[in-house]
């Protein structure tokens, strides 16, 4: 990649992040409908995380060495199991106690 292309990647990432931050902040500040706000929060957060991973951390599903992808994807799996498992278990316990 040329330097100009790499710089553009950072700036695109920055721009997208600003938008994906402004939307949830505005919704909360304006006290809009709770359900809608929560969904928007979640979606914007996930999207912004992807923006950071792609444009700042230069991770992509192609063009990446196998080892690197294995590492990040496996970590994602572990996080899913551990956090998901914890939420499932503790919510169940709270309901029953």
């Amino acid at each position, binding site marked *: 990649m040329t330097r100009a292309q790499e710089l553009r990647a950072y700036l695109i990432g920055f721009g997208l992040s600003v938008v994906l931050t402004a939307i*949830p902040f505005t919704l*909360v500040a304006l006290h809009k409908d709770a359900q809608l706000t929560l969904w928007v929060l979640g979606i914007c957060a996930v999207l912004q995380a992807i923006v950071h991973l792609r444009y*700042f951390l230069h*991770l992509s599903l192609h063009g990446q060495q196998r080892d690197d992808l294995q590492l990040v994807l496996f970590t994602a799996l572990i996080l899913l199991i551990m956090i998901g498992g914890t939420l499932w278990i503790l919510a169940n316990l709270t309901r029953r106690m």
Partner: protein
Amino acid sequence: MTTTKSNYPGLNLGAAHGDDHEAAETAIFGFWIFLMSDIVTFGMFFAVYVTSALNTAGGPGPKDLFSLTSVAWQTGFLLVSSVTSGLAVLNLKHEHSQSQSPRKWLVFWLLVSVLLGIGFLQQEVRDFIDIAHKGGVPSRSAWLSAFWSLVGMHGLHVSVGSLWCLVIVMGVLAQGVIQRWKHAIMSWAVFWHFLDLVWIGIFTIVFLRGLV
């Protein structure tokens, strides 16, 4: 986008850096591995936070304690800091494949990033003091304990990252842009980006969610 495969995750130094690029494969991949374990630790604090979210034990809750403006400022500081750290790495990659290039822009972008990080920390500390004054001390309830530890853990990482960057700047000034500092800058930048990533989780799940 380019079709050249990268040797290690994140921005690669590129073949122009010769040995430094070769050696970076092990060094940077190793740092990513460590970072993954750190992410899991954060994940645990997040999980405990979410499961404690309703345990305010009659004490103050998020709506009593959080300031949206302050969080917005902190988010801004960290996001811009992330971009400037990227500019530092770009500078490293393109201006420093021969170590004779002038270091001032590299040092400049690194220092800007640290300054923004310190700005973030200063806001955050003010916030914490304010919350404590309103009765939101960590010993008041499980939710407050989880809040202070999750956000505090992140703040601690930002502090360590800021110190690390200063150490790198002094190293670069004293010893030049040698291999060990190149690798350190690359690792630090990845660390810094990840802290911004974790912050996305924090401002969404802790602050915004709390204020809905």
